[in-house]
């Protein structure tokens, strides 16, 4: 009966109560949503590369190396010479090695030069292989294999011609040597989706007329070298950006890493992807904590709003309290009535927030996927989320003690008659 009266009382104040519940719901949805994005991002990053034991690049930070070589975020400060690459490849521990050459772009997407072995060695999400859904792999010098997002965003099909731009975000095109879309990689949820993959030789070929560093901003001087001449040239690169390495036995990883890091001809860096990822989390962790703290504060704000709302309603409800008292309710009953009210509001808010979260996830899932290549799984809520909801309800009960204790004191002081 008391619960019924409490809900009736709340329904009678539907507007203010509704707004309070909505505020709690939004804050809960935000809090849980940020948690979802956070764990989703971590999982997605962790799933991006597997099967690779070491990443080798010019000496810089291990996080930086990981970011530019795997996630195509940022740029390499330096290259690895082809000689060094050959030296590493010749090491007995090395089972396989795949070179990567970055630096050019096509529209908003990066272009990556590599060898066909990339398609066999690159693994993601556990042990999954890249699958060329349409067309075929790299066969001709001017073949390009594009990621699913590239194909979708630019509307490309197999056989289309594309022109690669020099550098990233530049306006000078290698338009004398157009590429042909040879294949499209099926969606992976990794940066491969947003990459144009060409052969290592092709990267060399389009730079034939560009002397080291580029002659002039306006492009190469003089007439372009005919394509036939280029095809006949030796297109072995002089340098690459990085290399992915697999070892024979896992126990050899550290030995090889030490060897690369001590390599005397050139300053190099070899990192274990998992270790570099851990380092990345340490950096990102601070921002993450801040984000979680802020969203936590939003929940606190919503609860404070509820507290203020109950407090301000007390005055107009003193007569109601006097009725309860006259009918035999103890002051403690009045206190529990207000706590109950807060708990009902918080529980409604938490449930509504949960529904908002899942509705939001359902809507945002394709958007996040398209914008960040981040796939947020819609899974059954786990215990931790229920714990958050429980904590919100508990916090609401505690917060409501402030107005409830005030009502307690008022109801003792008011006597039977409340003069308003």
């Amino acid at each position, binding site marked *: 009966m008391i619960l019924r009266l409490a809900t009736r009382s709340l*329904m009678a104040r539907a507007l203010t109560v509704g707004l309070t519940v909505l505020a709690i719901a939004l804050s809960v949805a935000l809090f849980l949503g940020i948690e979802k994005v956070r764990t989703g991002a971590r999982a997605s990053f962790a799933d991006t590369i597997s099967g690779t034991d070491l990443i080798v690049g010019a000496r810089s930070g291990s996080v930086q190396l990981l970011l530019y070589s795997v996630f195509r975020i940022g740029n390499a400060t330096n290259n690895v010479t082809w000689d060094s690459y050959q030296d590493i490849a010749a090491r007995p521990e090395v089972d396989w090695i795949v070179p990567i050459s970055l630096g050019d772009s096509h529209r908003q997407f990066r272009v990556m030069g590599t060898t066909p072995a990339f398609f066999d060695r690159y693994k993601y999400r556990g042990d999954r292989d890249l699958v060329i859904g349409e067309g075929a792999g790299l066969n001709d010098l001017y073949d390009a294999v594009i990621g699913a997002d590239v194909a979708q965003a630019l509307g490309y099909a197999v056989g289309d011609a594309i022109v690669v731009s020099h550098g990233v975000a530049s306006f000078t095109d290698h338009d004398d040597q157009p590429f042909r879309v040879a294949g499209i990689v099926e969606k992976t949820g990794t940066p491969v989706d947003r990459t144009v993959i060409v052969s290592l030789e092709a990267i060399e070929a389009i730079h034939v007329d560009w002397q080291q560093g580029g002659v002039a901003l306006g492009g190469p001087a003089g007439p372009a070298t005919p394509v036939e001449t280029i095809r006949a040239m030796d297109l072995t690169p002089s340098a690459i950006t990085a290399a992915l390495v697999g070892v024979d036995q896992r126990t050899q990883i550290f030995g090889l890493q030490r060897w690369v890091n001590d390599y005397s001809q050139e300053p190099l860096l070899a990192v274990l992807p998992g270790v570099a990822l851990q380092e990345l989390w340490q950096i990102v962790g601070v921002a993450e904590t801040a984000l979680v703290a802020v969203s936590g504060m939003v929940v606190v704000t919503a609860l404070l709003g509820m507290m203020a709302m109950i407090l301000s309603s007390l005055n107009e409800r003193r007569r109601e309290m006097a*009725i309860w008292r*006259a009918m035999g309710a103890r002051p403690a009953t009045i206190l529990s009535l207000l706590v109950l009210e807060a708990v009902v509001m918080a529980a409604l808010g938490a449930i509504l927030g949960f529904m908002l979260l899942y509705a939001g996830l359902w809507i945002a899932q394709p958007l996040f996927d398209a914008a960040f290549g981040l796939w947020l799984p819609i899974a059954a809520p786990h215990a931790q989320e229920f714990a958050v909801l429980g904590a919100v309800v508990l916090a609401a009960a505690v917060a409501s003690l402030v107005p409830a204790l005030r009502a307690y004191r008022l109801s003792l002081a008011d006597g039977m008659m409340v003069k308003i």
Partner: protein
Amino acid sequence: MTDPALALTDLRFAWPGRDGFALRCPDFALGQGETVLLLGESGSGKSTLLSLICGIVAAGPGQVRIGGTDLGALRAGARDRFRAEGIGVIFQQFNLLPYASVADNILLPLRFAPQRRARAAKGGCVMAEVQRLCAAIGLPDDIVTRPAGRLSVGQQQRVAVVRALIGQPPLIVADEPTSALDAATQDAFLALLFGQLRAAGAALLMVSHDERLAPRFDRTVHLRDIVTTPRVAA
């Protein structure tokens, strides 16, 4: 042995605060089933006295005995329970929780008074008793499910009477229950109230400043005759 329904002996009380209103009641009693009209000017302390009698505020020295029980000897919780069990309260107006149904309003004191609830349910179920009282006091049958806030003031006062009478508490305390009603409604209201009082055998202490109501009551008392209000100067 018949204890009086209500007996006050050397009761003293002051509202908290330096200039808090204070009153003192040396001796006053109300017999079982007796109806008394308590007259007094505004601000003379009538409502304060009723709060003391109901045990909503605790008296200082002196005694409030209701049906032989000394309220001062009870702890706060027991006093609240005692009020729920033994006293029906009617206010001037705004008697009901506006958002709750009429039935919930009537049943509210029973929620805190199991014995009174058992008495109310003796004729069958509690709702049957609610219906019977509503009909007896001239409220329409379908009223019990309506929200109390939608009723007219006169109807609300009658619902308050039903709520005070249900489960037959031996004492009814009413604080100017008719002042919000017009003259014709007042008369009908009092006729119904007295009819039900006699049927239930309850005593009534009703506060008013309207002397014209006096003939209906067994006895009329002026507050200034039973209560002294020392001006709190010292």
